[in-house]
């Protein structure tokens, strides 16, 4: 074969390779059903009921172009429900319901219903972790009640509740009374030496926004002095009869869902959640409120903290020491007591005591009530005493509730601000 002929054939070959493969695996974006949220519930038939939130891009595009004639009635998403014996069974069934291909890569949250979580989610998680396209950065959360209803929540001004909830979790650190964990970390904890993960807790709450409340009043249909409950009922009736304004559902992201292995044990309230965050060193920013020298409330904003969990074997007995170093800014003073070098050490002690109280609340519930090592004490022992860990590994579940935990908190006021004295009326005299 001559060189020229060979070159010709090579070029033809390359062209054919390109042309024959065509546009293999091509998907136009307008043929995709973009999934933003997944909710998994346990159905009455013991099957996994799966609800997905799908974006309607055209509605959002119309909104971006300036309303498009008050198309506010159109929701920016629609929900699809399917059920199956397993997760993948449910996912595949969507093809019988949706004209578009399911596209999971942009999913933001996965919500487990309380019933399903209590039954155990290991098998479901296995399937989720194997699903291609589904990112490991999605937030894992447990809904109090049905997970499906959370996807129907309306969170103004966002149009997609799943995306909005994702933003809420990202912003949790401002107040630090809720927990956030993504799929990757959740799976890592579940397969680690203390396989007791914690997930976000989300709760649906039916309530009315102020705007609607006032609108009704202006219409003169709401009587003055009527109780709040009556007003709600009234509006509900209005909504039902006129089909006009529907009662809006909103969600609250607070507290945490505590697992033992893959089963939900129960809930942490905001205080306990913060205690957990302190122990795990995940506390970022948060307001600490104490009673000041004259009994008034003082608020401090925690700015930075360090936590250390040190297991110690003392006279053959295992002791956990939790050390917290915290720094904060002075935020607010309800009384009129200025911060002075004299009273600062006393106030710092009070802050430390407040933190300690949170931690103890978390320990009480987690250790004594749920008997679930969500704090990662087992893993800490594993790291520090690998040999001894082998011996106690099997008995850890019995040992853990009896474990002695010593909590040490040090607190430091870093900045007390430029104002030395609160703006007391007539204080300048």
């Amino acid at each position, binding site marked *: 074969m001559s060189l*020229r002929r060979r070159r*010709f054939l090579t*070029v033809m070959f390359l062209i054919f390779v*390109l*042309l024959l*493969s*065509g*546009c*293999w*695996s*091509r*998907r*136009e*974006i*307008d043929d*995709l059903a*973009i999934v*933003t949220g997944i909710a998994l519930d346990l159905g009455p038939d013991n099957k996994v009921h799966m609800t997905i939130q799908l*974006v309607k*891009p*055209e*509605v*959002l*595009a*119309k909104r*971006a172009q300036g309303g498009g004639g008050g198309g506010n009635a159109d929701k920016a998403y629609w929900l699809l429900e399917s059920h199956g014996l397993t997760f993948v069974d449910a996912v595949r069934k969507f093809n019988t319901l949706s004209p578009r291909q399911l*596209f999971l*890569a*942009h999913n*933001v949250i996965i919500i487990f219903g309380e019933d399903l979580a209590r039954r155990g989610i290991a098998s479901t998680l296995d399937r989720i972790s194997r699903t291609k*396209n589904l*990112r490991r950065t999605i937030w894992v959360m447990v809904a109090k009640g049905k997970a499906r209803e959370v996807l129907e929540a309306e969170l103004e001004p966002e149009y997609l509740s799943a*995306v909005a909830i994702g933003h809420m979790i990202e912003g949790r650190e401002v107040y630090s009374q809720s927990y956030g964990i993504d799929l990757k970390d959740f799976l890592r904890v579940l397969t680690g030496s203390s396989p007791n993960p914690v997930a976000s807790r989300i709760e649906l709450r039916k309530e009315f926004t102020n705007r609607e409340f006032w609108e009704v009043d202006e219409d003169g249909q709401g009587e003055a002095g009527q109780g709040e409950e009556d007003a709600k009922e009234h509006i509900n009736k209005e909504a039902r009869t006129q089909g006009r304004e529907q009662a809006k559902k909103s969600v609250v992201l607070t507290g945490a869902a505590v697992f033992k292995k893959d089963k939900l044990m129960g809930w942490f309230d905001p205080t306990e959640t913060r205690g957990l965050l302190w122990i795990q060193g995940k506390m970022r920013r948060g307001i600490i409120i104490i009673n000041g020298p004259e009994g008034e409330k003082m608020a401090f904003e925690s700015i930075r903290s360090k936590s250390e969990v040190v297991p110690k074997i003392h006279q053959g007995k295992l002791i956990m020491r939790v050390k917290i170093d915290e720094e904060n800014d002075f935020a607010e003073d309800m009384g009129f007591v200025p911060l002075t070098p004299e009273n600062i050490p006393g106030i710092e002690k009070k802050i430390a005591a407040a933190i300690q109280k949170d931690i103890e609340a978390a320990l009480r519930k987690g250790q004594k009530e749920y008997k679930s090592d969500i704090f990662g004490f087992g893993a800490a022992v594993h790291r520090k005493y690998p040999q001894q860990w082998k011996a106690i590994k099997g008995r850890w579940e019995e040992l853990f509730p009896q474990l002695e935990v010593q909590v040490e908190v040090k607190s430091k006021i870093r900045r007390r601000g430029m104002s030395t004295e609160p703006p007391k009326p007539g204080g300048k005299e």
Partner: protein
Amino acid sequence: MFNRIFRKVRDSIKYGTGINVSGGDEHQSQVDSRLDNNLQRLKGIFEGCADVVFREFSLGTEEPVRAALLFVEGLVEMVAINENIMKPLMYEAGHRNPAITNIFKLVKEKALTIGKVNETTNMEEVVEFILSGYAAIFIDGSQQVMLAHVRGGEHRAVEEPSSEVVVRGPREAFTETLHTNISLVRRRLKNPDLKVEMRKVGRRTKTDLAILYIKGIVNEKIIREVKERLNRVDVDGTVASRSLGEIIQDTSWTPFPLITYTERPDKLTAQLLEGRVAIMVDGTPIILTVPVLFMEQLQSSEDYYEGFFPASAIRLLRFMAINIALLLPSLYVAVTTFHQEMLPTPLLISLAGAREGVPFPAFVEALVMEITFEILREAGIRLPRPAGQAVSIVGALVIGDAAVSAGIVSPAMVIIVSLTGIASFTIPGYSFALALRLLRFPIMFLAATLGLFGIMMGLIFLLIHLVSLRSFGMPYMSPIAPATYGDWKDTFVRFPWWAMVTRPRLIGQKDPVRQARGLQPKPPDKDKGGSGNPGSR
């Protein structure tokens, strides 16, 4: 495959049509001493050339001698013919020294008031000179012919450059007249080392051609190569410099220009100072310079007329612009049809919303819009200037808007295509911009079939091609590959002038240093009794 087709075409030219490029040998002989014989022969040669003027007259000597003047109307300055040739020859020739018996010498030395006069005895040369604007003076009884330089006639004045516009900087551009062009360079380089070598090219057109270079800076190998390649040129005629460039450049199998085409004398001067060679062709305002590097296509003369901070920033901006011009539609097609997971969620949603109801796949949409844009651009250039602008505005606004509101294309695609088009306008090298416009399409095709993988494949092929190119022996991708870091002072960014001490390494290696070191401004030195800046030490 292409080679084979090309070879067939070439063979048919060589043997098939057989253009007779030899001009015939009827006037290859010497000039006769008898005027009548000469005139008869010339009348034969110029038969049917109504613009050739034969003027027979007698010299104003005591004994009238017959003489004849030949020139081409329109190529000469009539004032010079009347005042400096006819008048002295007819009136004043005889009043000079009667002792001189050689009439030819008398006329040349005592009568003719023309600055540049050649002599010849070769008839072929006479014809050539007459045709290039000289006036030939035949004197009866003399075998020699005087060729007086009275070139003139109509030509375009020096105007502002049209394709290489700068905001600040010289506003002169080359014209169609070779000698004007040479003078524009000479005015900027008052140095005998600036050499101008003349030659002719084209068997029938006899186009004048000048090779310019600065002796002492230029690499002799390049000069030799240029001359060799020009010697090889054997064409019927060359009307524009571009056609000549295509013959002498290293290879034709590339979309990229391997020769710089410029119309700015200031740019040409700077290039000569770097050690480059310029080839000027009479009749074209576009001058060729060699060798050329890839990176120069992204440099504008504007860069040197602005401060080095803004100039460098603008240069980096152009790098972004070529990436946009080459890749943006392909990236859009690849990402929206294969890699949706790469887009941020809100962007994906708005792109999907915009594409809702568009009947074509993204690739077809992009292809149609790009071709439409290219058609509009071409129409804008071809149409008479006032109409051209109207077409581009109507095209861009009306067609784009109508297509979007009709739902045939998505608004995102209109943005992509117009951004691509505008980005390609920022490229200073016009031929280079054309190459990028062309290459956009194969890369788009690759993106539509193989996604980002295809784009990378295309870019790798492109890179391999670019590093294999040579311009008159110089690696095209220099100073990047081969890397000469010293030259990076004027590649991606432009250093301040005082930092550019050396010439480009590969081109100007004969005399590497072009200015003194340490020219940067600094506070006056205390020891030398300056004003003594207290903060300096």
